[in-house]
């Protein structure tokens, strides 16, 4: 009896450990690739070639950069609160990893030992969407801490901007999520993704709820501090923004945090609006004849492909649009997007009342 219990415990501990290693590995592996991708994509948008010296197609450029940053001087500005100064970069990076841990990245319906219906997620939460909303806004603390602890007015302005921007656009994001959840009827991310599978054509929320998607997308840009909402690090006005005083690996952690946040945010958008790991039944049902790990790999691949497409869209937007001015950002957030988000909720309610098909 006791030995059986122990065995189960060991099993689950091992399983959790494996899942955590894979999730952290995916984020840590994805971030250098995203940095490389950003440089390559921005180069192509500007009709340049981009990094092509280190490794094939410059793929190892990020590794070379990391190596360089590690050898740089470990610099502390005078009169700083060192603990807060050190906590800044870490707090920016961690939320991305935590958020990615909550997102279901695939499904192996045959893998019964996983429990949770074969959904591949580090932590399979019934309230996953709420958890994501709670975690994804934590990154702003890191930026605010770093900006304040740097003892530099430009950094401080960057940190303050980040906080203010987050408070404004968090509302839009939550309101758009509310409109979504009204129709899905669940906070479970795996269920939300599964609902969008569709039979022949993908029944993605992107197509059925374009306004909600648009609101969420704009809020996501602001939340990840990506252009055109990259005011916290507006280099033309604020030198380097919140990471002006950071050097070496600590600066690298901020960079990693930015891209981990983008990766997590693109995963969220993929799950909520692009159907997560699912493909329509007609496209994918042949997979039932194969073992569970095959399905797991394919669904994971589909998920990653969708996320990378979303990341490309983020980069596309960054290298197309100019940055907002500070007052324009606030005006857009409070006077345009929040009213639209509220109207969107009303429209969703009306559609639910008069069109049963709209409810998932």
């Amino acid at each position: 009896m006791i030995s059986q219990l122990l065995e189960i415990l060991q099993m689950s501990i091992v399983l959790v450990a494996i899942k955590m290693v894979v999730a952290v590995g995916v984020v840590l592996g994805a971030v250098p690739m995203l940095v490389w991708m950003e440089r390559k994509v921005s180069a192509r948008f500007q009709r340049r070639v981009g990094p092509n010296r280190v490794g094939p197609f410059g793929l190892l450029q990020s590794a070379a950069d990391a190596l360089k940053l590690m050898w740089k001087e470990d610099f502390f500005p005078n009169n700083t609160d060192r603990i807060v100064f050190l906590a800044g970069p870490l707090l920016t990076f961690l939320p991305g990893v935590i958020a990615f841990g909550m997102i279901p990245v695939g499904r192996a319906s045959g893998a019964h030992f996983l429990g949770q219906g074969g959904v591949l997620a580090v932590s399979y939460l019934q309230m996953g969407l709420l958890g994501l909303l709670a975690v994804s806004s934590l990154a702003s603390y890191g930026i605010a801490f770093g900006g304040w602890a740097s003892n530099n007015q430009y950094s401080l302005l960057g940190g303050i901007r980040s906080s203010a921007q987050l408070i404004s656009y968090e509302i839009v994001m939550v309101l758009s999520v509310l409109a979504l959840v009204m129709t899905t009827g669940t906070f479970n991310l795996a269920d939300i993704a599964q609902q969008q599978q569709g039979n022949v054509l993908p029944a993605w929320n992107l197509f059925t709820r374009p306004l909600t998607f648009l609101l969420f997308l704009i809020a996501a840009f602001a939340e990840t501090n990506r252009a055109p909402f990259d005011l916290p690090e507006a280099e033309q006005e604020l030198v380097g923004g919140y990471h002006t005083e950071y050097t070496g690996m600590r600066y690298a952690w901020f960079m990693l945090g930015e891209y981990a946040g983008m990766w997590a945010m693109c995963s969220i958008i993929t799950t909520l609006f692009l159907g997560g790991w699912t493909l329509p039944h007609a496209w994918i049902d042949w997979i039932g004849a194969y073992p569970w790990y095959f399905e797991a790999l394919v669904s994971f691949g589909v998920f990653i492909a969708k996320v990378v497409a979303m990341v490309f869209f983020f980069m596309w937007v960054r290298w197309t649009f100019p940055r907002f001015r500070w007052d324009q950002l606030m005006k857009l957030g409070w006077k345009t997007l929040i009213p639209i988000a509220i109207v969107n909720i009303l429209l969703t309610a009306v559609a639910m009342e008069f069109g049963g098909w709209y409810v998932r």
Partner: protein
Amino acid sequence: MSADMTPQTPQTETATEAAIETPAPRLLTRTVLKTSQKMSWVTRIYLPMLLKGLMISLREFFRKPVTFNYPEQRPKVSERFRGEHRLTKDDEGKMKCVACYMCATACPAHCITIEAEAAPPEWDGRDKIPRVFEIDMLKCIYCGYCVEACPKEAIEMTNKVPQVYQTRQEFIYDREKLLAN
């Protein structure tokens, strides 16, 4: 200006009159016209315009890069491009240079080093030839004054784009390299 408005000071009145009489600059007029136009609702919700912008940048994304990989690929330059120097030879294959130091004197960057020696006796018509003739390509500004200064047309510029090396020593071109250039 409406009629019931009381004129404030004579200065402003004259200023207004002057502004009416002198035509506004062309650029200003156009700006005023643009902003006074009422934007259509398509423009005001921005989204179609944003999509248009995204399409423009996507078109650029798929076009060929205009840059090239510099040290491997060389820019195409015209025949008259002033690139690396060359020491010329006469019909018998002897170098024309007579080590007169004119080029080194003319050089504003002081990049030419010449050490003279006596010419071999069978080379008639000259006293000296350069034992050392070095050009430091890192100092050279490619102005071409050395070519203008040379009385024997012994130095000229090729249209070879300046090379890239790993060490400073490699940038110093000696006599043989310049003769072969």
